[in-house]
């Protein structure tokens, strides 16, 4: 299992479009990808889970990956979030 804390930088937070792009990207990995935020766990492969987490700009979240390609998944997730989720 690998994990890393990152801060959300895109202005609108994890709203529809970034959440959708992110969930789709994470869906390509066989590892389980989880977002830890405010003491809850959210399935990062599910757009709806991410939206329900209500993560705003400036919030710190932890990405946890577990599985055969966990390192690649984590690196990809962190890079996407730090670059503002393509916004």
């Amino acid at each position, binding site marked *: 299992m690998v994990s890393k804390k990152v801060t959300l*930088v895109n202005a609108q937070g994890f709203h*529809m*479009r970034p959440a959708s792009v992110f969930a789709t990207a994470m869906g390509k990995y066989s590892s389980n990808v989880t977002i830890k935020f405010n003491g809850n766990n959210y399935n990062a*492969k599910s*757009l*709806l889970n991410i*939206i*329900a987490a209500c993560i705003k700009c400036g919030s710190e979240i932890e990405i946890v990956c577990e599985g055969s390609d966990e390192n690649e998944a984590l690196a990809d997730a962190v890079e996407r979030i730090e670059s503002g989720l393509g916004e």
Partner: protein
Amino acid sequence: MLNGIGASDGIGVGRVMLIAEQSLDYTPREIADVDAELERFRSAVDKFCDNTMEQAEAIRQSTGEKEAEILLGHIAIIRDPFMGGEIENLIKAHQCAESAVDQICKMFIDMFSATGDDLTMQRAADVRDIRDGVISVLLGVQEVKISDAPEGTVLVVKELTPSMTAGINKENIVGIITETGSQTSHSAILARALEIPASLSVANATTQLSSEELVIVDGFKGNVLIAPDAKTIDEYTAKRDAYLREKRELENFRGKTTAGADGIEYELFCNIGTPKDATKAVEADGEGVGLFRTEFLFMDRDRLPTEDEQFDAYKQASLILKGKPLIIRTLDIGGDKEIPYLGLEKEENPFMGFRAIRYCLKNRDMFKSQIKAILRASAFGDIRIMFPLITAVEELRAGRALVEEAKADLKASGIAYDENIQVGVMTETAASGVIADLLAKEADFFSIGTNDLTGYTMAADRGNSDVGYLYSPLQPSVLRMIRRIIKCGREEGIPVGMCGEAAASPTMIPLLISFGLTEFSVSAPSVLKVRKNISKWTKAEADAVAEKVMAMTTEAEIKEYLESIV
């Protein structure tokens, strides 16, 4: 008359088309053949996605990319592996597809609605739309065709769904009335994008109005007039035509630089009160924000906002502006505002009392946390700090010293900020006008707050009907004050802007151009109007007007003259 929320500007006069809700009732039943039911569910989803793609394409052509995306989001949601998986699990437990879709969607609707977050709650509306769409396919219910609506139709629906919007023909639909929705809901966004006047949240609209009835939708006020008489129709038709004419004219100024008739360029910014307003500023074609009031962070709560909370808000506004200037005014409160946790005492005369920079300098911890939050946000855009109610040079010095202290703290903690952040003065007191020459030597910029400057110069409260007549920025004293502030700023080579209502006033604009103002900061809806008004003037013509005005002795004379020439 019915009342609602005006959510899309304009006036619509037309006949009601009532969109009744289709019954999506089904009888839950136990499924014997799970595989067949899974197949039925999956093909319903495929069909739903096909329909949605088609509608999105129609919206893309009629309205735009952004609006089409709302619908494409529906596909992403129904294709969500988590949602699909949960629905299929219920089907595997022998529930029928309708019931499975209904339950899982309801779970998400409840979850999103419970967050209390505006944006997330809107997703609940999406899931509701998806549930209805998929269940309609499963039940074989035909959707109503809004595309067949005749010319001059006012749509009346419980809720305007994105899928309904796809069928709207802009030429034929002249107004929209819904029973739900707010300024920020999908219905409102779509109505505005389609430029159709809309009144939302009109209670019982679908039962109070009947098909073919003549109504007027006032999208400014949110009113719906039922069966108006000929005179009222004429009145509203004239209003509608005037609005459309002006709108077309102003649209020509969108995307243009703000410049006088001689090509001299000016900056045209917006005044905002929340980070969200920054979006409005950008949409209104503002070139930056000349006044970001920070009071919202401190109001309607029971404790001080933390540095992080403030940082989030400032950063958010800055990111929305994408590098355009953002002037943040530090806290401007006093005994006239109800902020119980600050323990501000009721004062005899709060406007001349313990407020704004005076209060902040006495509450250093609070002030420093605001300054640190602004500095941290300055790493994300062109942010500038502005102090309100400055009356003496010492106040500016004390504020600047605190900025330096905050910088040192951040540097020690290795936190990024803009080392060269500009610190300016909101010149809004008579004192700051008189000592503008001294302040200009130590400030990086001035911004004239004409609302308070007028009040403090004239010693007149505009809300007091006995003395309100004195309150006018066209008073010779106020004009001299403004001219002096701009002159002093220019002599020291610092930019001078204006963030009061006067900056948007057509009669003030030639005077401000002549005095040498370089930045106008106005409310978002005024941006294009002000750009148009500025474009009418050359510096030489404005100078001639100003020369005449400054030779006049009374406000009445000045006002009469200016109104005769603009």
